[in-house]
């Protein structure tokens, strides 16, 4: 008992020590140099963290752009397991610390008003990277830099109507419910396909962007429809690749019996397209660090920027197109 008490006492002393050290570290950071007088410009990047190859490429590209050599100090704060709460915490601590600019890739669209208002009060410009917020109150942030989800998913829908002039039975593999990307990709698809009665929607399910879940979901979807699914719209590459595995396991040929279209354009997906397993890959270009750099410079110089900056993306509709693009693929 006595020993136990002493151990507890030691433990609390140790944790208090750690806390004090941490706090002093904070104040040391915040107090000294600010971006205005010569030191590096401090950028807080509230990021998503490990999610898939696309995100990896996007965030690595950001980190490579905002380097010390370019005069920046990028503080990278990935979310813990895609949890919004951890993002809000990181955002708040960036505001308290007084960084010069905050870059935000929100894991979830809603629930950002209070945090964004705090940043506004502290006069810290916020730039949305890729993910938007809901409701989309443009006064709360400076600009959003992202490829246009609507346009990208419309390009998938356009390909579908060309490939299946007589229509098809299709299934949608979605990201987690409530994320802005999912809503936008659904909207773009539905605007085109929803107007065509020859396309029959068998259903939509979330597979949480994951290959494993997509495989499990799609094997059951195939069974519940007696393998009569001709078209799959997978809202990211990973889920599309999971659907490929499920199709192969059911003894069908992906690309022939079931055509699978995905969004993102990662290397893995293009390899699958080159091998004829996927049928269409719409790129959602993650490499826009340069654009972000430009915007940050303009914002710090007090210039006006558009409230939405679209990053151009391309599409791949054949194995040949994939093969030519593969050697220079960065993600």
């Amino acid at each position, binding site marked *: 008992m006595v020993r*136990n008490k002493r151990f507890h006492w030691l433990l609390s002393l140790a944790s208090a020590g750690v806390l004090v050290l941490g706090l002093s570290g904070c104040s040391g950071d915040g107090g000294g140099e600010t971006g205005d007088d010569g030191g590096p410009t401090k950028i807080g990047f509230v990021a998503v*963290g*490990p*999610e*898939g*190859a696309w995100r*990896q490429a996007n965030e690595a590209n950001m980190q490579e752009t905002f380097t010390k050599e370019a005069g920046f100090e990028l503080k990278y704060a990935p979310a813990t*397991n*895609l949890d919004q709460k951890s993002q809000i915490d990181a955002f708040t601590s960036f505001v308290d610390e007084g960084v010069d600019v905050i870059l935000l890739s929100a894991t979830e669209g809603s629930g950002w008003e209070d945090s964004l208002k705090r940043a506004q009060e502290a006069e810290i410009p916020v730039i949305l990277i890729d993910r938007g917020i809901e409701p989309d109150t443009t006064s709360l942030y400076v600009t959003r830099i992202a490829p246009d989800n609507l346009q990208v998913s419309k390009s998938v829908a356009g390909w579908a109507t060309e490939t299946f002039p007589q229509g098809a039975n299709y299934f949608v593999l*979605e990201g*987690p*419910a*409530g994320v802005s990307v999912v809503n936008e990709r659904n909207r773009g698809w539905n605007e085109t396909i929803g107007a065509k009665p020859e396309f029959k929607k*068998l*259903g*939509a*399910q*979330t597979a*949480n*962007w*994951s*290959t*494993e*879940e997509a*495989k*499990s*979901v799609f*094997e*059951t*979807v195939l*069974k*519940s429809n007696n393998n009569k699914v001709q078209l799959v719209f997978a809202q990211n590459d*990973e889920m599309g*690749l*999971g659907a490929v*595995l499920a199709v192969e*396991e*059911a*003894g069908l040929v992906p690309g022939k019996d079931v055509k699978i279209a995905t969004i993102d354009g990662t290397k*893995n997906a293009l390899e699958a397209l080159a091998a004829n397993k996927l049928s269409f890959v719409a790129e959602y270009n993650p490499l826009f660090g340069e654009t972000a750099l430009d915007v940050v410079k303009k914002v710090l110089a007090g210039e006006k920027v558009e409230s939405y900056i679209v990053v151009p993306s391309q599409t791949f509709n054949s194995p040949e197109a994939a093969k030519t693009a593969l050697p220079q693929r960065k993600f």
Partner: protein
Amino acid sequence: MSTTERRTVGGLRVLMRRQFFWGIIAILLLLLVNVLKDPSFLSVSVNSTNGNLVGNLVDILRASAPILMIAVGMSLVVATGGIDLSVGSIMVVAGAVSMEFLKANGQSGGVALGALGAALAVSALLGVVNGILVSVVGLQPFISTLVMMLAGRGLAKVITSGQNTAASNGPFRWIANGYVIGLPVVVLLAVVVVLLVALVVRRSALGLMIEAIGVNPKASRMAGIKPRGLLITVYALSALLAGIAGVFATASVMTVDVSRTGYQLELDAILAVVIGGASLAGGKFSMGGAVVGALLIATLDKTIVFLGVSSSATPAFKAAVIIVLCLLQSERVRNLFTQRRAARARAPKESVTA
């Protein structure tokens, strides 16, 4: 009433008294709902080209394999009065270790065995750490395994340098996707592991000792049970089983998803154990119950997809099924029903006498 009839009625009554009886009923009801949607749901056919069994039931069994592993481990931990929150994270560690190992070493069967061995060894090691934190350091199981839950996913990210890692290796893929005499390997392996664990804990005094710790640690120590070694063994076993689950989950797609593999599966495991009738206060475990619980969760997941419940309604649907099941299991709620029925049966009699 003939004797055989009486015996079956008696058998049914014994089964009804088992907590997991309601779990079985729930599985049957879910299957029934699926059959109502599509009468061919239960049909299992033989694939003409390779002789493998295919069907929704086979899919459910395959999907239940990883949950089965962690639920069995969890039931032992819960029986000691502890809890293991780290199983989901240990799954992702096992997945990360095996994928990195395969990526570095190539295609052969020996490499697959090496990956399996490395993954399981690392998992068991993490379990030993859990066990030491609980039994030697004397931290609360909730806290020690919570620490491991956070550290585990972090460790997986370090191992894969934060990326989802894919590898290709035929024999390793076979573990989750292969078939032997028409049956999926992953199901056979899961059954063998469960039987093995059940045999070891029930045919020896081990199970009894585990439960004794859960009932009263002090009394069990005085009765000559050494809790330290036993607790370390139990946590190591739970982690080892989680490692196997991680191998199952990653081998099925040959990719480890550092933020998704095994994510929140510790909750599924706890749920399976509770559905199986174990009390979180410890002191008893039921292998059969854990198996029923794991099967129920897999059936529920597949039912949601089969019925086409929309993504946004999925969590609510799952919660509704589980709360109904827990209500059915509760003695008090059941008594309420029987009392009302008895009251109604009594009521007309009273009116006659009056």
